[in-house]
């Protein structure tokens, strides 16, 4: 691992921790509902000490919105990515371990889901299920599991030919127990490399859905703040710029942390 890689990993982790701290302490840092009108509308950033980042056209505090939005974006991103990876692991392990017809069917389905444009699928799912935080998680999970499934399947195909798996078979363990307790742990390591990408992608999809108005209307989210800021793009561009910086920082920190985590594990493996 190069020095640069280590440095970016540290920077990424620091930003991520800061964002997590803001999200966890949102109620202490900015008490009250971030969707409440609290000040004069369209205050510029740094103009009023009570509203450090200004207010929007309805007099809502931008700083409060960003802090509470962190909660939504990070939670949805993490939970959706975790669910997607779980689905991918399940499908990949079954396909790789069972082989034959089951493998064929599962892989054709994986290919089909991967062929549908991911965002279109997520958009369709949310619009059919209804716009709530839980449904956004479900939609992202159902549309972004295929890469994990393919990776896990390839690893399972490799691992299941190893001697210790044969030993388990000879010892008479049940096939599914072998698949999930013996083969899967050996096949998980490359999945680590996908965590950062999957979480970052989930945050981006969540923000895009929110931008299009498909998010929980009772929760302030970064994407929804940008959509709201579009109306005053000419007079108050910061309403669009600030939440976007928050999204970019979140995705950047997650992918940097994920990359360096994967590199670290990979290095330890090779060593």
């Amino acid at each position, binding site marked *: 691992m190069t020095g640069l890689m280590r440095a970016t990993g540290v920077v990424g982790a620091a930003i991520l921790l800061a964002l997590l701290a803001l999200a966890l302490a949102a109620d202490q840092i900015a008490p009250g509902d971030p969707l409440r009108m609290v000040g004069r509308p369209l205050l510029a950033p740094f103009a009023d000490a009570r509203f450090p980042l200004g207010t929007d056209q309805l007099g809502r505090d931008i700083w409060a919105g960003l802090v509470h939005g962190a909660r939504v974006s990070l939670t949805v991103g993490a939970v959706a990515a975790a669910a997607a990876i779980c689905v991918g692991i399940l499908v990949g392990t079954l396909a790789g371990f069972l082989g034959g017809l089951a493998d064929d069917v599962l892989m054709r389905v994986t290919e089909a889901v991967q062929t549908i444009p991911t965002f279109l699928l997520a958009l369709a799912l949310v619009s059919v299920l209804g716009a709530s935080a839980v449904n956004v998680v479900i939609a992202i999970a159902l549309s972004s599991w295929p890469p994990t499934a393919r990776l896990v399947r390839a690893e399972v195909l490799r691992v299941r030919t190893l001697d210790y798996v044969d030993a388990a078979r000879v010892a008479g363990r049940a096939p599914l127990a072998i698949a999930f307790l013996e083969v899967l742990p050996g096949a998980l390591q490359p999945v680590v490399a996908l965590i950062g990408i999957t979480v970052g992608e989930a945050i981006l999809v969540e923000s895009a859905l929110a931008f299009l108005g*498909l998010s929980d209307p009772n929760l302030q989210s970064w994407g929804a703040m940008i959509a709201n800021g579009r109306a005053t793009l000419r007079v108050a561009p910061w309403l669009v710029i600030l939440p976007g910086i928050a999204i970019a920082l979140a995705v950047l920190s997650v992918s940097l942390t994920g990359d360096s985590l994967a590199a670290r594990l990979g290095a330890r493996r090779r060593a």
Partner: protein
Amino acid sequence: MPWRFLGRRLQQAVPVLLIVAVGVFFLLEIAEGDAVDAYLAATGAGDAGLAAQLREQYGLTDTLATRFLTYATRLATLDLGHSVAFDRPVLEVIATRLPVTLMLMGSAILVSGALGVILGGLAGWRRGGPADLTITVTALILNAMPGFWLGLLAIILFAVKLRWLPLGGIGSIGADLSGLAAVLDTVRHLLLPVGTLALTYLALYVRLMRAAMIEAADSGWTLAARARGLPERGIVLRHMARPALLPVVTMLGLQAGAMLGGSVVIETVFAIPGLGRLSFEAVTQRDLPLLAGILLAGTLVVVVVNILIDLLYRRLDPRVGDGVRATERRP
């Protein structure tokens, strides 16, 4: 033309399309409320009698199996149903919107592929240098930006502050241009959306190209070329960049779906009347038949783009024979 290869690829595409078609049917089934509810809500008129009559007419009162059969036979004859929001056949609505999206997507794929190859190639060639650092960091940051936000930033800068380019749309309204002027007008309108879409997906290609360049630089054939005393320019272009192109080309095909998905927000931001904006309109107006048609059409577009990219791959890599799929050669 490699007909056998094309035949095989089409054969591979059939199960994918069938599964997507079945999936779309069930997606429509789990939707709360149906097309009639949406239609009555949109027109703001009607009673229970009319609703029942319309449901009968649309075949919504049948059993699940019968409904599926109706859906499948209609699909087989390319009948995608009737759009509630536009009051026209879904196929017709999609056909009018598709060309713009294909133009947007095609240009964005070309631009991001070309930029990725150039920048990634440069970074890989000058590994560890200031150019490498600048390109890698820029790609990382671009990768983290949401496409719609980048588009809005571009609008703020180029359309609002500098006033160089139009805010949105695909042509000047009422300008009545023809010939070259009309083409230039379209190009001016597409510059920002294509640029935004291309930049959001650039990072992947930069990364891939850079890694493949480094791999090729350390390869035996590059060493052999150096030993023969070939000029550096030739080595970089022919022995390093050319083989490094292959994974990038494969990824261009694999990312076609992501590009099409990304065009939803980009078309919404730039008010481009394409398939992406249409899907947003279908969602906001609860036009489920239209949404289903867009999912099917989008999938078909991705399949076709992938086959085209595989054909291109075969031209670039002489090692690929008949029946071997480019995407399977490189995991």
